[in-house]
């Protein structure tokens, strides 16, 4: 009894008696370390060691077969000057932004609407989550035909309302819009369900109080709902950033049929070549494993930087 450490975020309120204090950390907390150790052991074997090896690799020239050749910082110097890499960063960020902001907005609106809808709630939730259940291969085939220039549904719609056709998968912006649309479609419902889970934790007394104070729905949302939703918003934003900036399968499967040089080229003018596609192209098309590793480390830095910016932006306002 009472030998357990204090509950979260309250180190000052340790439940132990002062006599128990001097015991060493390892003996006192061994069960906690034991509980998290399987993850860290697996991570060590299949994460940290491979990742460490790829760091080593990034300082070498290697074609995957012959001997490795020390290259020093040459790969990174080349990376910094590589306009193709910078283009892939730009592509990735544009696609991410085109997908993420509409997605978070739509998901939030959907969640608020679902929260106030009384009937058919479960039917809606089921249908909205469905896009996320599908395999990317199937989704990409469907969207490839939706955005097809000559036979596509999108152009059939444009024509029906008297607009000109767009060569979606053949223009730099068309490609980005098509990939972003696919991602928005696949993730909006998923995030709406998560937002909904957060919405239901807002105590109804708070809404009651806001109503009595004469707040309208919009005011209530910004003053009551949003501040309480910040942790959930943070979760959604971080996950969207990490997965969105590492997008690979969406552009790869969607654009491989229009690519004439490589399945990783990202369509005409490489307009859909994301950072991870570029990694695949360098590593597997060019058999340049050392440079591929350097590209992957570049991707990692971009993702971390973006995640920190997002984390700060969400946490600063109100400091939840």
């Amino acid at each position, binding site marked *: 009894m009472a030998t357990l*450490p204090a509950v*979260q975020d309250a180190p000052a309120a340790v439940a132990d008696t002062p006599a128990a204090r001097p015991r060493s950390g390892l003996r006192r907390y061994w069960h906690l370390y034991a509980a998290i150790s399987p*993850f860290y052991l697996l991570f060590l074997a299949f994460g940290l060691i491979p990742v460490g090896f790829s760091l080593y690799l990034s300082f070498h020239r290697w074609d995957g077969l012959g001997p490795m050749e020390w290259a020093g910082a040459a790969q990174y110097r080349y990376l910094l000057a590589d306009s193709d890499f910078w283009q892939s960063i730009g592509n990735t960020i544009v696609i991410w932004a085109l997908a993420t902001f509409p997605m978070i907005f739509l998901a939030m609106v959907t969640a608020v609407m679902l929260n106030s809808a009384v009937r058919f709630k479960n039917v*809606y939730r089921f249908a909205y989550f*469905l896009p996320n259940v599908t395999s990317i291969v*199937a989704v990409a*085939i469907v969207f490839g035909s939706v955005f097809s220039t000559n036979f596509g549904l999108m152009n059939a719609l444009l024509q029906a309302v008297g607009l000109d056709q767009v060569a979606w998968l053949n223009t730099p912006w068309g490609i980005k819009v098509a990939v972003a649309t696919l991602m928005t479609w696949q993730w909006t419902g998923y995030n709406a369900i998560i937002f909904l889970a957060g919405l239901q934790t807002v105590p109804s007394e708070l809404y009651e109080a806001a109503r009595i104070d004469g707040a309208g729905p919009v005011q209530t949302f910004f003053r009551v709902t949003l501040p309480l939703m910040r942790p959930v918003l943070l979760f959604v934003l971080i996950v969207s950033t990490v997965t969105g900036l590492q997008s690979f399968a969406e552009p790869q499967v969607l654009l491989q049929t229009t690519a004439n040089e490589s399945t990783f080229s990202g369509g005409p003018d490489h307009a859909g070549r994301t950072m991870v596609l570029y990694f695949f192209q360098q590593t597997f098309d060019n058999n340049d494993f050392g440079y591929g590793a350097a590209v992957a480390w570049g991707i990692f830095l971009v*993702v971390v930087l973006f995640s920190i910016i997002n984390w700060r932006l969400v946490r600063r306002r109100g400091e939840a």
Partner: protein
Amino acid sequence: MASTLRGPRRRGIALHAVLVAGLLLSAFPFYWAVIMSTHTSTEIFSYPPKLLPGSHFAENVRHLFDNIDFFGSMLNSLLVAVSVTVLVLFLDSLAAFVFAKFDFPGRKVLFALLMAIFMVPAQLAAIPQFVIMAKIGWIGSMTALIVPAAANAFGIFWMRQYMKGAIHDELLDAAKLDGAGFLRQYWHVALPVVRPGLAFLGIFTFMAQWNDYAWPLIALTDPDNVTLQVALSQLNGNHGTTDYGMVMTGALLALVPLLIVFAVGARQIIGDLAKGAVRG
């Protein structure tokens, strides 16, 4: 009186109109996938687009079964997805419980490390991982897919956020007063409370494993012993000559087990998850 009632009623109808529009948007590609699976490739790429079912579904299924070992690869996918899901649910909830509810030296550093892992592109480790697995002889077997996937940083992040809100400190304190040790607090207090969060993670993990295709493509070297997505991607391999009707039929049939898992777990997700709390 009547006029005060009309306002909310009208708003309710507008609300459902918007929700139904969203529902149609999210369901439409499924409808179209079904339509495509009943047509030949030539019909699929004709203009105007086909919006009604055709008559070639049986033919597409026959071509599919002729080209790949559909049920064999489906069994492999099931084995991998079920094993990974069970492992992830256990390991991640245990670790998340520690991170959400206890303080110990190194907690912040270990958690920051975990978030860093989450941000490492999976591809970064792929080549060395392949080399390591080749050395221990796992390449070509399902073990190569199951064991590394059991370390899932996303799952710990999700369960931690969920547990922070859902497990109240008073509940744990009460259990401690009753003399419950760490494992009993985890098993008897924490797990029952976070069941909806677990259901969500479980379904999500199952889905991700079922749909994964980049790593299985690399790690499964015997073309006759692959997972379903890899088998399907073999069909999609030769551009130009691809039989889209057949590929679409395969993709649709591959969805069936997912829909079953989702339907069974959906009650937990869409019903109880909403009752639980997600706080940071």
